[in-house]
């Protein structure tokens, strides 16, 4: 039983790892992959689904009236419905839009909103902990259209500071907020923020890039109007992202990119956009990637997202204890202390050893962590640092990965003295 009282089955990592070819590809050397927040590994089921599609079925979708083209369309649209249902979309076949990644999903919104709804001086509220993907598109809109951006700041414990939230949301048109911080790991109180934002008449966009791959997601429960996420962080391929949006809002927005497939009619003097969801999908879409992502969703659903979350909480708890008992005050973990408030992400400073040097020494032991600013430079400035090292988990990690991390950090400690 987990904290919600839902029955979960513990993950059997040794079995799961057999499904991931990458773990058997390294000359028999162990690979301690702790960088899934950047991109996850892919199970054989995802690779086979894409391979099978290319080997047996490939043709362009929504065009041919021959049988493999029809089958390709069925698979592509089937993937859409499955992925939409995975995040609780009420109308998955209409409201789930395929993009290139979460970044493109947010760019689609910032672009269509500024050509449709938003006017000069309109307020968009973001947070200080956003990934550049949910900052730069709005900064571009500010530059081009003169929208105003306000920020919810981060407090010293890694939570959003909600003291002046009503002032910030006053007259706001949009609130766009990450569900889980890719640096601090903080899981934000999105439902609470969404309810407040709606009270002020704002629409609510969730950046789910670090959330959807790890926690059971339901857009209605979260109170969202839009949700952006990406395939490659959730065991799926690169090159595919998703934007879910409420039908009536998607209807009201102008299209993003123009081209084939997104139109109902084209004349020399104009065009009529296609219906949802194709209105937002110009050109040949990432068909094999959609099929691969649907296989990834099958894989995750088969494990159960409750189990995935329970597994990550156990790993987080073990990692916190282990890092603290070995390194004490030499190692500072950023973000909330309460692991229930965290995703499977641990950013840390280790003595005064630069994250690059840490990462380099860890690499010698086969331990893969991310070192850098994690595409969140404003947050880095807030923390008063230029970079952190970050270990992040997914279903194929277990305590041996944390043990390898601890051993390798001890080596770094010895090396840099």
């Amino acid at each position, binding site marked *: 039983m987990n904290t919600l009282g839902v029955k979960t089955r513990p993950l059997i990592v040794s079995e799961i790892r057999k499904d991931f070819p990458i773990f058997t590809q390294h000359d028999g050397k162990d690979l301690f992959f702790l960088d899934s927040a950047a991109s996850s590994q892919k199970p054989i089921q995802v690779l086979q689904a894409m391979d099978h599609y290319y080997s047996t079925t490939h043709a362009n979708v929504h065009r041919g009236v021959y049988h493999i083209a029809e089958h390709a369309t069925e698979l592509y649209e089937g993937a859409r419905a499955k992925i939409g249902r995975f995040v609780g979309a009420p109308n998955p076949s209409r409201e789930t839009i395929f993009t290139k990644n979460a970044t493109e999903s947010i760019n689609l919104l910032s672009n269509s909103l500024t050509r449709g709804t938003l006017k000069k001086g309109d307020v968009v509220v973001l947070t200080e902990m956003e990934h550049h993907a949910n900052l730069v598109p709005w900064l571009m809109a500010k530059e081009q259209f003169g929208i105003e951006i306000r920020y919810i700041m981060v407090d010293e414990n890694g939570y959003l500071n909600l003291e002046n939230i009503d002032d910030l949301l006053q007259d706001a048109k949009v609130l766009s907020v990450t569900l889980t911080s890719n640096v601090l790991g903080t899981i934000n109180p999105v439902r609470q923020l969404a309810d407040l934002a709606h009270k002020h008449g704002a629409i609510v966009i969730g950046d789910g890039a670090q959330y959807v791959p790890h926690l059971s997601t339901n857009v209605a429960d979260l109170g969202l109007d839009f949700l952006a996420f990406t395939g490659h962080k959730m065991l799926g391929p690169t090159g595919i992202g998703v934007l879910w949006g409420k039908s009536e809002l998607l209807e009201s927005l102008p299209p993003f990119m123009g081209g084939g497939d997104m139109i109902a009619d084209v004349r020399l003097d104009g065009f009529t956009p296609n219906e949802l969801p194709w209105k937002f999908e110009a050109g040949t879409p990432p068909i094999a990637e959609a099929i691969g992502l649907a296989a990834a969703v099958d894989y995750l659903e088969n494990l159960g997202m409750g189990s995935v979350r329970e597994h990550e909480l156990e790993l987080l708890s073990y990692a916190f204890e282990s890092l603290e008992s070995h390194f004490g005050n030499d190692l500072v973990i950023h973000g909330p202390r309460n692991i229930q408030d965290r995703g499977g992400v641990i950013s840390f400073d280790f003595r005064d050893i630069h994250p690059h040097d840490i990462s380099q020494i860890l690499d010698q032991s086969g331990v893969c962590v991310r070192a850098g600013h994690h595409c969140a430079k404003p947050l880095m400035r807030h923390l008063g640092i*230029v970079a952190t090292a970050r270990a992040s988990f997914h279903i194929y990690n277990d305590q041996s990965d944390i043990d390898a991390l601890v051993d390798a950090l001890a080596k770094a400690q010895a090396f840099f003295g």
Partner: protein
Amino acid sequence: MPGLEDLYREIILDHYKNPRNEGIFPTPPAVKAEGHNPLCGDELTVYLLLEGDVIKDIRVTGQGCSISRSSASLMSVAVKGKTLEEVDHLLKIFKSMMSISTNSSGEAEVVEPVEYSERELGELIALQGVVKFPVRIKCATLSWNTLVQALESRAS
């Protein structure tokens, strides 16, 4: 896989832990330039006191990994008291050392190879092992690129 000892030579660790010419100069009379490595967030500022065509003195300040900080320290020692012509030559041979001729993958800059002797490079030779770690080449070249910017800022 190349070993850590190729990368973290003793001289490098020494310059990292005890950086030479660290600090700032008032501008003017000094000229300065800020360098960033957007990939990893390294930041450093180079200050130059020029007298005619000689770098009379230099200060470096900033944040970065052991490679970028030690390279900045080594660079400051190498160019201090040198004429701009000598600095230009050092820059060319350093960049030449940092280029990868056999393997063009990674993010290394492709630089025209220049003939040079190890004697000319002096302590800078300690950074030779960095080329085996392509991702780190930008760390090693950041201070040199910033030096060039500082010299250019004077020209403008």
